[in-house]
């Protein structure tokens, strides 16, 4: 089995879906001749031509709006927004149309644009290139929101997203695009949307995260085991909407403690939703309040201060220790 990084795994998923389904169309800025600024769509235009791998004008709202029209006409458009921090002009199309077309027409047509975008910090980039705004999409009825944490899931979740009949926001953690290599099956496979996964079993505390933070969780869990004998269970949320509360709540019922970690701002972040769900469904199992480790409610800082903003293993370890001693 070939070892792939996330960029290669996503590229392979797109290539295979385009191969097996002629209705799959790629569109976005620099996705064709340039293969995308992160090279995620590398090689696709050579195989499938510029009619199926469309270099669009620089217009995010237009890209998503066109994708909605294509979906209405029966195609499966996969749009790329170059960075999540530039997606805001397209937010109107997502909220006003992609998410509602099915409801508005009572199932007659749908606006199932699949919108991929690199997101999140840790890449020492310019302003607007490090944002983590998954909660603003998860808040929108009618949108599915997916965040892969490794190459295997990236391929399987993207295949699921391309085949899904609903609009999907597919957030790719830029920080781990090339940081993790793992065995990825050559043949296409589906990792179902809406299903979280326990990636490390443990008895003492549940760590809940998604995307690039999974690496931080693993590091924290190892340190906790070594330093304090605390066995942390890690849940990779994978799909923020629809949210798999069952997997999360089952874990918390077992451990009695929960720490939610995300790099997005704290207030109204998705951690607040998870914390509320745990409280509503498992209050009497809790031995300590649900803790949140998050970015601050500030503008994501530029490179020099980025490390102060991003959650890291020491912060998570300390939060778990505080939770254990509550």
């Amino acid at each position, binding site marked *: 089995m070939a070892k792939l990084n996330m960029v290669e795994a996503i590229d392979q998923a797109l290539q295979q879906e385009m191969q097996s389904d002629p209705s799959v169309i790629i569109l976005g800025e620099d996705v064709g001749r340039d293969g995308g600024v992160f090279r995620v769509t590398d090689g696709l235009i050579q195989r499938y031509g510029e009619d199926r791998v469309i270099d669009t004008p620089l217009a995010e709202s237009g890209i998503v709006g066109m994708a909605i029209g294509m979906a209405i006409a029966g195609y499966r458009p996969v749009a790329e927004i170059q960075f999540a921090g530039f997606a805001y002009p397209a937010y109107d*199309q997502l909220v006003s149309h992609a998410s509602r077309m099915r409801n*508005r027409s009572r199932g007659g047509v749908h606006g199932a644009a699949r919108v991929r975008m690199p997101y999140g910090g840790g890449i020492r980039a310019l302003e607007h290139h490090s944002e983590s705004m998954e909660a603003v999409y998860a808040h929108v009825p009618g949108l599915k929101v997916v965040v892969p944490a490794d190459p295997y899931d990236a391929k399987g979740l993207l295949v699921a997203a391309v085949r899904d009949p609903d609009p999907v926001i597919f957030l790719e953690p830029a920080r781990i695009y090339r940081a993790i290599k793992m065995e990825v099956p050559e043949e296409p496979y589906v990792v179902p949307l809406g299903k979280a996964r326990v990636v490390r079993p443990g008895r003492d505390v549940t760590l809940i995260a998604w995307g690039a933070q999974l690496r931080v969780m693993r590091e924290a869990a190892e340190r906790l085991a070594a330093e304090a004998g605390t066995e942390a269970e890690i849940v990779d949320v994978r799909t923020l909407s629809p949210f798999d509360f069952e997997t999360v709540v089952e874990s918390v019922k077992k451990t009695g403690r929960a720490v939610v970690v995300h790099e997005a701002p704290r207030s109204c972040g998705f951690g607040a939703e998870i914390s509320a769900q745990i409280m509503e469904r498992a209050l009497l199992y809790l031995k300590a309040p649900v803790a949140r480790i998050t970015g601050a409610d500030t503008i994501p800082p530029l490179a020099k201060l980025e490390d102060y903003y991003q959650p890291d293993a020491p912060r998570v370890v300390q939060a778990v220790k505080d939770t254990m001693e509550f």
Partner: protein
Amino acid sequence: MAPINTLVSYSVQSVKVLDEDGSVDISLMPELSPEQLKALYEHMVLTREFDERMFKMQRQGRLGTFARVKGQEGAHIGAAFALRPEDWLVPAFRETGALLLRGLPMQQLLQYWSGDERGGAFPRSLNTLPIAVPVGTHMIHAVGIGWALRYSGTEAAVLTFFGEGATSEGDFSEAMNMAGVFQAPVVFCCQNNQYAISLPFTKQTASPTVAQKALAYGMTGIRVDGNDVFAVYRVTKEALERARLGLGPTLIEAFTYRVTDHTTSDDARRYRSEEEVEAWKRRDPIERLAKYLRAAGLLDDDGVAAVQAEAENRVAEAVTAFEAIPPISPEETFKHVFADLTPPLAEERDALLRRLATGASPGATKGE
């Protein structure tokens, strides 16, 4: 030093076929059979009658807020009359006559404007998108559909409607630009009714016309008298034919006037004079067509009365059919959020059904 010319020169053609007296410019008159002429007239009268009846029903509290089309029948019906069944229509919200012309049952529109979202289930065979309330954001969908028609080699085009206010929205620019870049078979039809709620056209844009905006996007633009159904039909028919042949998109500005309030919630007396409105009422598109038909021997007093009576009958039947529609079930709101009900939504739906099963009545504090 000689001054530098800072702008390319351009001219906007303004097309008029049928004047206020009902006489036509023979050289520009589109080909229309007597049956088509009669059908056009009957449809405009039907739309007017339907609009009047809906207005009364709104005032009686039987319908919610809606946007009237009175006085704009020439613009949107003239344009939609040029559509073929395989073409697509991407409407905004002031195109009642075009929707009915596509075959949408009147009772379904009544259902929609009454606040029953099942009315949005336009039959798929009509190739007509549901009503788009957010201004100026739907034209880009026409470009996506147009791209798909072109890619699949389908000889069909897309007609999308919007008002002059929508041309100030950013998505208008993105849609026009991408239609030009991809040579999408789209006809952009702007019903310039000169008011975006209260804002007059002169304050909406410094451009003297909407049509000239086509120039910047490398497409054909044309202005037409929107109260002249022959002119609108003719330019739209030609634009759709060009689009179907792969010759690119067109922007049509149908210059008309909104003789009613913006919606039933508006009071236009706050921002414009009675004299202005009355002057435009004298340019009524239906009267103009009737004069032509009378002169051509296709219509007389009895004919006018018969067409009016038939319109009233059809509207009355639609109202009866609308009133017979069973009430919408509360769980309908969960049905089409996603293709399949997700577990979190199923939980919320079940909680609502449990509340209702205990006899709880919703809306204890009724809104207006």
